[in-house]
């Protein structure tokens, strides 16, 4: 079986050591979630498919600045409409908070990265890519 060509786009650097070699990784440290979503949308337009829901682990949108998107790379295949639909929904959800000006407590950011890492680990287990 050909190994799945997968990629991750994330602004959470704490997940780095979790990632199996099968993944190509794009880190956008310091970027807001919407930049991660936009980068993922670009990949989807080039043929990638979503492997996991981008909002997983953000139980409520805007409660954490961290976002990790798991994609299956498949260049050259037709556009995957369900993936595009989900990513556009996520962008629309994010846009609601663009002007909300939520400020995160700096001291909490390591914990939010920790939760992001925990949920990324759960997703990787489900995907069974090691």
């Amino acid at each position, binding site marked *: 079986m050909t190994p799945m060509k997968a990629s991750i786009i994330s602004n959470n650097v704490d997940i780095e050591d979790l990632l199996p070699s099968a993944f190509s990784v794009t880190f956008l440290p310091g970027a807001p979630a919407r930049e991660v979503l936009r980068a993922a949308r670009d990949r989807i337009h080039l043929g990638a498919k979503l492997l996991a*829901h981008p909002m997983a*682990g953000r*139980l*409520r949108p805007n409660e954490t600045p961290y976002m990790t998107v798991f994609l299956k790379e498949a260049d050259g295949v037709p556009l995957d409409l369900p993936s595009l639909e989900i990513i556009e*929904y996520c962008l*629309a959800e994010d846009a609601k908070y663009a002007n909300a000006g939520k400020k995160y407590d700096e001291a909490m950011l390591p*914990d*939010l990265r920790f939760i992001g890492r925990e949920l990324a680990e*759960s997703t990787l287990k489900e995907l069974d890519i090691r």
Partner: protein
Amino acid sequence: MELELRKIAIRNIEFGTPARIEGDTLIADPDEMRELILEDSRIKNVSFDIALPGSSTRILPVKDVIEPRAKPDGETFPGTFHEDMQEGGEGITYCLEGCVVTTTGPIVGFQEGLIDMSGPAAEYNVYSKLCHLVMILEKQDYVDPHEHEEVVRLAGLKLAQNIAELGFLVEDFKSEVYRWGNIGENYNAYPDLPRVVYVYNCMSQGLLHDSYLYGRDSKIIVPTMLTPLEIFDGALVSGNCVSPGSKTTTYMHQNNACIKELFKRHGKDFNFVGIVLCPLMTTLKEKFRNRMLTVRQVKMLGADGALISQEGFGNPTTDLMIVCQELERNGIKTVIITNEDAGIDGMSESLPDSVPEANAIVTTGNSNATLMLPAMEKTIGVLKDIERVCGGNVNSIQPDGRLLVEIHGIMGGHNLQGNTYVGAVTI
């Protein structure tokens, strides 16, 4: 299968010794409770407090809320403490109705919401009308966040079961008897009425985003048929899930409002024939597998209609929508319950996913709407944690002590089984 719930009304809690129930007052013995909880060597310290309805008290951050329940000839929360677990939903269960065990204390920064015992926040949720026996836990330094979550979860369940045993001596109770047949008996019970199945979504994503069925992490199960009676007996408990407004605490599982309503109208408006538990997971593969298995079980139960409740918002909304879509495509009329995130002004599109087949939606309100909460005389927990909870931020605490929070920062503020005081009602 037959379950008798013996409900003992509790309207007050006091500390004293010996522990007992006198009239509608629960007298809890702090030393005895402390000894019980410190049996777990991972706990460094524990203290207790009381919060009563109407008082100027705020509890924050709340992890779980549990109704004390115990069985004279078995255990509630089966599968949690013993290997030789019994099936829940049979026999007698004593319930201390009107009081709860509430756990508080930080696990990681992503904290839980608040319960106000009076004021505007108290108008939203059912928790503010209950008497809280609050347990504040401090873990040993070596305990990591995973184990910490487990420690808090088990301590809450243990105490809830322990104090409910005081009810065994009480003779003044209200009895509710529930019966549940096999699939064939249920199917044939009311041949002239439409058959309805409840699809019970539960959070299953990872640390502080999990539920436990008979002690098993719901991330590692596939959709499963359950009886409502085992839910009453605590077969399903919360893994201290975050997202206060839309989380299903153990109390909300034990008192699932959808199940209660389905029973109320069973045999009158429809025939309630079953529950399918559907874990809400992160990968699309799991979502599609769970959709297939959930829909197939609903079909096998012979449903004409289905009700789906959810937990959380965002990622779980996709599960809610795709299961609804597939049920409708199979001719099963489906109603879903969700809250909305329509922005602070209520002007934004309110759902992060939708399908045209979702044509019957019950909303529990816009969780982004903000409330200004008055200062309370007493805070159990850490007020500053409001800056870290869902619905709060670093600007939440006002110079005069008031709090500005979004509704989803209030525990159960828009409970997704509809167990809330805010909603649209027909008058």
